[in-house]
């Protein structure tokens, strides 16, 4: 700032040239140069907004930090940190019930990922490319889980299974989670498919490919980064999902998140800190992966998670 020469109020050269006879114009400029007031419109640092942001970040990470910190506590307390210890982690790895739940959650997430990808990719392709009444109807159906509170879909799925006399089990959780995840896959892929250039596919067909071959050899490879990103995302979402799993799970084994729910309802259980820390690390790793995938493929915007589209 100090390096800049001081700005002198200048008059436009044209003004000097066309000066008409008459009263001398005032030497003082009509208003102070705008330069002094602000350099660029938004350049002023909004101190208030920045302070709120800092406080927000502190409060956002404080609970997570507490869980991680006290998972390494040697004591049962959640207020006093005594010594570093891995005792709650070893307690988790010795707990057969929790390990069984972990295995079930992993299986459910894998199946939901595979199922929702197959149905969701096909649905997204159809929705973008097909302009018919059925298409707009399918588009509406697909949006329903996104505009319904999860407890409603949970209650509804539970009633459906029970109404048809299906015993709630791992299978019912898988079916419910697939239904729920299709929407995510479709929403993520829709904008990517719409951004593809259909002429490339048409060129492939001009060169003798069938429509199916063009889809398989041209379109799907172009979509691969987005598909992988949404796969990772669905895996993480299903693994962490609690409400739907809670309403559709049977007695044994229960998904890990449902176990956590029953554990924290009945007071402090330090093992939960260890499980929670492992789950946090897992989801954060997966989401980071999902965000990084488009970049790994040298492309941007494979996952429109951040642009809010």
């Amino acid at each position, binding site marked *: 700032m100090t390096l800049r020469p001081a700005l002198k109020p200048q008059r436009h050269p044209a003004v000097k040239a066309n000066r008409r006879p008459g009263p001398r114009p005032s030497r003082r400029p009509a208003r102070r140069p705008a330069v002094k007031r602000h350099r660029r*419109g938004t350049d002023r640092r*909004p101190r208030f907004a920045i302070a709120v942001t800092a406080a927000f970040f502190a409060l956002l990470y404080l609970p997570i930090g507490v869980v991680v910190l006290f998972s390494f506590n040697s004591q049962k307390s959640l207020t006093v940190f005594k010594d570093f210890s891995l005792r709650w982690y070893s307690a988790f790895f010795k707990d057969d019930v929790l390990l069984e739940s972990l295995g079930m959650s992993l299986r459910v997430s894998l199946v939901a990922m595979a199922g929702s990808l197959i149905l969701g990719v*096909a649905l997204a392709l*159809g929705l973008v490319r097909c302009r018919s009444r059925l298409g707009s109807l399918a588009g509406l159906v697909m949006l329903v889980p996104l505009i319904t509170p999860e407890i409603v879909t949970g209650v509804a799925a539970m009633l459906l299974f029970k109404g048809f006399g299906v015993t709630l089990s791992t299978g019912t959780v898988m079916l419910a989670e697939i239904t729920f995840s299709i929407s995510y896959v479709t929403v993520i892929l829709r904008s990517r498919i719409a951004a593809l250039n259909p002429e490339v596919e048409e060129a492939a067909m001009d060169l003798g490919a069938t429509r199916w071959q063009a889809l398989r050899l041209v379109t799907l490879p172009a979509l691969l980064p987005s598909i992988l990103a949404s796969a990772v995302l669905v895996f993480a979402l299903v693994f962490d999902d609690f409400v739907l799993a809670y309403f559709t799970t049977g007695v044994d084994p229960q998904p890990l998140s449902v176990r956590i729910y029953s554990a924290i*309802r009945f007071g402090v259980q330090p093992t939960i800190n260890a499980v929670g820390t492992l789950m946090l690390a897992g989801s954060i790793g997966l989401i980071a992966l999902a965000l990084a995938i488009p970049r790994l493929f040298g492309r941007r915007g494979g996952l429109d998670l951040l642009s809010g589209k």
Partner: protein
Amino acid sequence: MALRKRPEEPRPRSGPSASGTRLWTWLMIPGTLWMTGFLIASLLLVATLAFGTTDPLGNPRFGLNFENIAAMTDPAYRAVLLRSLGYALLTCLICLVVAYPVAYAIALHGGRFKNLLIAAIVVPFFANYLVRMYGWSVVLSDDGPLLKVLRAVGLADSDTKILQTGMGVIAGLVYGFIVFMIIPLYAALERMDVSLIEAGRDLYGGPLRTFFFVTLPATRQGAMAGCVLVLLPAMGDFVSAQLMGGPDQIMIGNLIQDKFFQGQNWPLGSALTMLMMAVLFIGMLGYLRRTRKDEAEATR
């Protein structure tokens, strides 16, 4: 976000893209059938069972019975519904007030850290909801870090409580869903033409006037989308009230959960679910009407 309709481009009626229409239709069918079979059918089932009854053994029976619908006028349910609505609306408001400066600071002053900062907000949000809520309840607990700090600076007495009060429930809801407010606001602020703010300042608007008369109206759509996205899950949540509220802070989600698990009165639970959906539907209609009006004005 997903709620907005994309403008449709016209498709050629002949040529290669038209010839594949059948393939596209076939691709669409399995997913649509699946969603209809599992989702739409089950939602209809809930709506039907709301008119059902329970037999003496507690098993649900379908029928045409208005007992459960009539029960919705029970003052006890009305109190819970109003409390849920009040908590959800207050959550919305707090989210808006907190999220706006955050989104503003990041979108307009984040510089090259913009994406990193937004990722830092989104990533923990994808971590397990229960674990986050559990950590938050530890932070807010009577001898937790937050109250310790507040006591140290004299903002709280020794007997101030956050947990087991309505404030605790709202704090939980805000923590759980604020990201749904930040993302659409961030998107709207990022998309906004910065020269509008410059123009406001050039016209000698102070920072506050520029904000209220330029920035805020320009990003109203994002704010409204955020409100809907926060209101929907906040209304249905039952974890926050369970972990951070007392017995007199239960929300409609807790009632529904109770009717399905402890009370075993599924028809009544279904009726409560439909009641909640009806309330949310009215809110959604208002939102849709507003956005449609905005779009009509924008295209005029």
